[in-house]
């Protein structure tokens, strides 16, 4: 198969070698856990009809990344698709579709590494979908069904999904010691603030088209998913707050860490085997703390969500017994 206009190289797909093995494994575990939840939800909610729907839409998102338009000179805007998948399918199926897209890009086209696939799934499928879901549902509610609100919410959801995913990507690279945080975070953030505009414009225009042609597809049919709303909101907030912190005050944070002797404690024997873990010079402890914070938030959110589910099921059972 040869399709002539190749998708533009996307600076979001991390190749192997740019995330350390420890970070890769951590993000593999996080991604597998969240995708497993998405699979269970999808199995329960979706009928057999939705399997071809998700497969064909995944192909459309993959192929749709070839749709581009010139922005300035040689640069072009094009679609990544997390936001539009979320809006059309709902968050859980969208996570499955985006995970399929990212996996096939890595497996077949070496767009993103295999060890780094866990991190790439986390950035593009999980963050991309949950952030656009949070922004889109939030803005739709605020703008309360106004016609122009659809385009605005679509634009901002798509822009935010790209931007926040790029922050996560930059932090992963910085944590791996491949790029200093005070360079990686601002660079990735500013590039993707621009790329996000292209994504946002295409998404908004696509939504306007679908609104004109098939309005029924845009009705919020599949209830809201409070789990994703909370989780996505927390991830977005945490990354948005912590990234500037990591990029502007790494030395200050490291100084505090050194004073308290964290640095020597933080390096256990495991990390001695993995030389990638130690950053040259700056911000090791600060960044580790930030990642630990993000992981902690995710874990706590997962546990809280599990308890809430179990609780609801117990309530349902007791109500059906009485």
């Amino acid at each position: 198969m040869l399709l002539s206009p190749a998708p533009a190289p996307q600076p979001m797909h991390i190749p192997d070698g740019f995330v350390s093995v420890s970070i890769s494994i951590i993000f593999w575990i996080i991604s597998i856990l969240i995708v497993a939840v998405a699979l269970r939800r999808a199995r329960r909610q979706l009928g057999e009809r939705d399997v071809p729907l998700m497969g064909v839409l995944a192909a459309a998102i993959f192929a749709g990344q070839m749709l581009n338009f010139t922005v300035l000179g040689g640069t072009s805007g094009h679609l990544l698709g997390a936001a539009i998948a979320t809006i059309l399918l709902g968050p859980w199926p969208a996570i499955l579709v985006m995970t399929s897209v990212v996996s096939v890009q890595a497996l077949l086209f070496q767009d993103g590494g295999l060890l780094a696939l866990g991190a790439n799934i986390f950035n593009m499928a999980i963050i991309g979908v949950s952030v656009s879901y949070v922004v889109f549902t939030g803005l739709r509610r605020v703008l309360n069904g106004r016609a122009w609100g659809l385009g605005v919410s679509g634009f901002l959801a798509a822009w935010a999904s790209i931007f926040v995913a790029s922050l996560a990507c930059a932090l992963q690279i910085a944590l791996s010691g491949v790029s200093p945080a005070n360079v990686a975070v601002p660079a990735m953030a500013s590039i993707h603030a621009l790329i996000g505009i292209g994504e946002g414009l295409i998404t908004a225009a696509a939504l306007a088209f679908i609104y004109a042609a098939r309005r029924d597809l845009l009705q919020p049919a599949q209830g809201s998913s409070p789990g994703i709303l909370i989780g996505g909101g927390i991830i977005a907030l945490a990354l948005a707050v912590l990234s500037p912190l990591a990029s502007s005050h790494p030395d200050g944070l490291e100084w505090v860490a050194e004073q308290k002797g964290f640095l020597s404690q933080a390096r256990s024997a495991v990390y001695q085997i993995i030389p990638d873990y130690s950053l040259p010079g700056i911000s090791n402890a600060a960044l580790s703390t930030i990642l630990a914070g993000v992981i902690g938030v995710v874990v706590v959110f997962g546990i809280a969500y599990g308890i809430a589910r179990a609780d609801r099921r117990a309530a349902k059972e007791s109500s059906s017994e009485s």
Partner: protein
Amino acid sequence: MQERYTHSSSPVHALDARVKVILTLVFLLSLNLTPISAWPAYILYLSLTLSVALLARVGTGFVIKRSALALPFMLAALPLVFTGADARPLALPLLRELGWSVPVSLQGLERFASIALRSWISVQAAILLAGTTRFNDLLTALQQIGLPHLFVAIIGLMWRYLSVIGEEVLRMLRARASRSASAPGRYRAGGSLAWRARVTGGMAGSLFLRSLERSDRVYSAMLSRGYNGQQPVEGLEPISAANRRILLAGVALLAALWLFGLLTGR
């Protein structure tokens, strides 16, 4: 977008896909766990990928050309060269006369070169896996290793319709090119930026609508062929004894390479 699989009847192609998947992952792990500046070990890893490429008759040139794909990302690691712990101003004759000085760190340079080299070899390994394994075999292998059925179904369907929908996209791009006139040279095609974005968005929207409708037809076609929500599962054959020996030998070799890397690197 170009499929990497190239057919030939080599021992690498004939190897069980599960063995290839596992060996590729072990290779990537051992390579990326090798410390920085382990140059002799890197050369051995590189010679390993290139000799597998020779053995598989996919062409070393093909592998090297494809693996340039990860090059743009190396920009991300470039700052290491200038921000390492031992950075000191580099005194290049020409730069000094202009009054510029760039801090360059030798450690950072070593680190950057190691990262770049490891990444380049990693991409080669992934290319070899995709280049010598049919996608269906790869998917079956992943299913037997433990990829959930729903994923296998989604990815299988996605793969089947990728070329169909890809051609649909190409037709749309051709239609746009033939309708929005562009003068040769530096003149841009079409109208303002907003106009171009709106047209592209319309194309994306119409692509998704067409794909939704196509998925309905696909579903009816599947139903009429007896689809009941289950994908036919390929028989779970155990890995043959010969393949198992290759797997063990490969893992042992990679473990030895990793130990060698630990000894030679910093």
